[in-house]
Each structure stands twice: as C-alpha cells, then as structure tokens.
C-alpha cells in the first residue's frame, strides 16, 4: 500500500501521518506530482485559511493535478472544502470536485464549531461499521451545504454535509485522525476502498 499525504504547507499533517502509522501504514508526505500519481491512495489535508491554502496549492501546480487523480482521494477538513465549487472564506474558487458551496456559520452559534458532534445519514463504504450518530471531532467556521454528494450530515445551526463523495473522491469535514477509535476505523475503511 502506497499512501501519500499531499504536502502543500497547509497546517498540521503530523497527526494524520501518525494516525495511519497506528494502523501500520507509513504515509509519505509529498508535493511531488509523480509520487502522488503513483500512490494507491491520496490524502488531501488542510488546516488554516482557504484563500492562502489555495494560493499554495496553485504555486505547486497541485490544483490541476488533484482533480485528475483516479485512485481514492480523501480530503480532510479544509481539504474537503477546497474540493468544493466555492467557499465564502476569502471568496475562494475551489477545485470543483464536489458540486457544493461552502458557507460560514452565522453568529447565532459560536464560531468556530469546536468539539465532538454526531454524524448521521451515512451512505458510503467509507462508513462501513460506523453507526448512525457516532461522534467525530470537528473544528471549523465554514460548512459545505447539504447536497447530492452528501454521504454524512451533522447538525450545527443547520444540517450540513459533514462528508462528501464523488466517484473516487471523498471528503470529510471532521478529523478522523483525532476522533478516537471510530475515526481510526474510518481511515481504515478508506485504506480498503
């Protein structure tokens, strides 16, 4: 199993690497297109601000590479948001992999949402063995609207898409690498897709 984590300078990727290590898989951190293309599975992480993350992505040319990948790709947190059409954060155009728009929570709730919330309406092999309303750890101020591509939803101010799927592309808003044994099971599922 060759697993790559796309390294474009966006945030803490050590935890993701460690989470896979706990599953016995050594993930490679790389921004090398050939290495990414040659991987069996690709993780597209992201923490921080959307427009600056997109600039970093463009600088490395990875914005063109990622949508063309044919192996299973998992976007996590901001990674997932950047795979959508557009995000309100910094009015940023996304990669357009998921037909969804990303909006900011209103000030009726505390922003960022920070902590453990449940995932429901699960429909993907990514969630094999995961129960409805299992808990995941989330930290985010922007959310993907509920849409056709939704494979999980979460309630915070409104029901939004906390996971998305389109062909070989998967995205999760929550942090499976920080969500205890259940999160770890999701990463394991991804590895066996």
């Amino acid at each position, binding site marked *: 199993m060759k697993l790559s984590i796309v390294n474009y300078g966006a*945030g*803490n990727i*050590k*935890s993701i690497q*460690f*989470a896979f*290590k*706990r599953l016995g898989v050594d993930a490679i951190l790389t921004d090398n297109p050939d290495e990414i293309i040659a991987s069996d599975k690709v993780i597209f992480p992201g*923490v*921080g*601000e959307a427009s600056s993350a997109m600039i970093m992505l463009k600088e490395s040319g990875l914005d063109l590479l990622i949508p063309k990948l044919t192996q299973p790709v998992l976007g996590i947190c901001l990674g997932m948001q950047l795979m959508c059409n557009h995000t309100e954060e910094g009015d940023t155009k996304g990669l357009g992999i998921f037909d969804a728009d990303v909006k900011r929570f209103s*000030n009726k709730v*505390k*922003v*960022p*949402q*920070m*902590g*453990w*919330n*449940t995932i429901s309406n699960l429909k993907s092999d990514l969630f094999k063995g995961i129960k409805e309303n299992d*808990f995941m*750890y989330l*930290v*985010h*101020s922007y959310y993907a609207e509920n849409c056709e591509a939704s494979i999980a939803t979460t*309630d*915070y101010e409104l029901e939004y898409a906390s996971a998305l799927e389109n062909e070989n592309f998967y995205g999760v808003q929550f*942090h499976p*690498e*920080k*969500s*205890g*044994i259940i*999160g*770890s099971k999701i990463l394991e599922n991804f590895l066996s897709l």
Partner: protein
Amino acid sequence: MLTKRIVPCLDIKNGRTVKGVNFVDLRDAGDPVVLAKQYADLGADELVFLDIAATLENRRTMHDMVLKVAEQVNIPFTVGGGISSIEDVDDLLHCGADKVSINSSAVKRPELINELSQKFGRQCVVVAIDAKEVEGEWLVHLAGGTIPTEIKLFDWAKEVEQRGAGEILFTSMNHDGTKAGFANEALAKLSDLVNIPIIASGGAGTIQHFVDTFIEGKADAALAASVFHFGEIPILELKKELKNKGIPVRI
C-alpha cells in the same frame, strides 16, 4: 448536537507530569504519554498540556513529549506555557499539537494573536486568561495569577476574540484550587459577550460543579486537573451524570 467537552489538564515539567496522579493500574503516572492515553481511553474529549517550567532548555524536551503524544493519542490536545512567537507555535504544530494556548505573551504583545491566527488559522489559537475579582472588578493577572494588571477581563476577552482567538480558556484565580465550583457568573457573562467557545477552569470539586458550569456558566468545555488525576471524579461517571441532566456529552 455539539457536545460539551471534558478536558483534563496535565502540568508538565521536564517532560514529566508534576502534580501527583493517582490512577489505578498505571505503569508510570509521571509519564504524560501514558496518562494521556489513559485519559483518551476513559472518555476525555480533549487534553491540555501546560509546560510550567517553560525555559529554553526545556523546549526540546517539550517538543519530544508533544511528538510522542501525537504519535500515540487519538484525541485533540492543546499545548501551553512559554509560547511567545510564531516560531514556537510552528514548532509545536509540526510536532503534532492541535492547538496552542498563549497567555502572558498575548497580554504583553496582543498583535501576537493576530499573527498566529493569520498564519495558522484561528482554530488553533487558544487564549488563556487568568483573572481575579478584586473589589467587584475582574482583572487580568499574569504569571499564574501572581501579577495583577489593570486590564479588565471582559474588555480583554472581547479584544482577543476580535484579534482572532479561536477559543478562550478562562481561569478564575478566586476559584482555582478551592474545589468550590467554577466562576459561573463571570463565565456566563463571557459566553454572552463573545462568540467563540469558552473553556471553564478553576474550582472543580464535584460532579455538580460541572453541571452548574455547563448550565449556569454556559461553558462549552470544562477543564480540571486534580479531581481527575486523583480519581475523585471518574470521567465516565461524570459524563453519565451530565447526560442524565440533559447536557449533551459524548459517551
């Protein structure tokens, strides 16, 4: 529904936990990694590591500890103590910390909050505020509550939010160590004033104190040290009781 978080806090000195811990079946209660794993298994939602001897020499030891925790623990954790620059934060995040907590350095140079938030995102910037109620006025204190300032708690809380803090960790020096309950009145006022999560700290003694701080104090998370370390309040029992009281928790 987003759940309320229970957050054990570990004081670290030279890579070891300092306050005693009294867990049954623990190989090495002084090893933060062993303790952290234990807490994760027991149902803690998040952990805070506070470097109480944050000297230059200790920094390497702290980095090693953070790396080991990140390697073995599968819940989020915050690291605080002696953090005063972008480089400090960069190092800790690269070692696998999820969030950093800054305190005195933010009071001394508030722009640090803006800088960190712009560079790393506000989700990883926790501003810790120690305050003491003096003659009816809540004033920010430094150095573990020993040095008073003239900064008013509520003004400062608003300012740190505006500058980009993702969360506030509020410790009442009047309540800390008393085991007589959290500073719920001030906490509720903070929660109404700012729109970022508030972690209540200082005063945990009984399960009821946690119930009160989530209901009356409107806290989003509650932090405690000794009641957890000495097994006075088992986390699972605490969470079951919170759930019985209608407070959303992860069990």
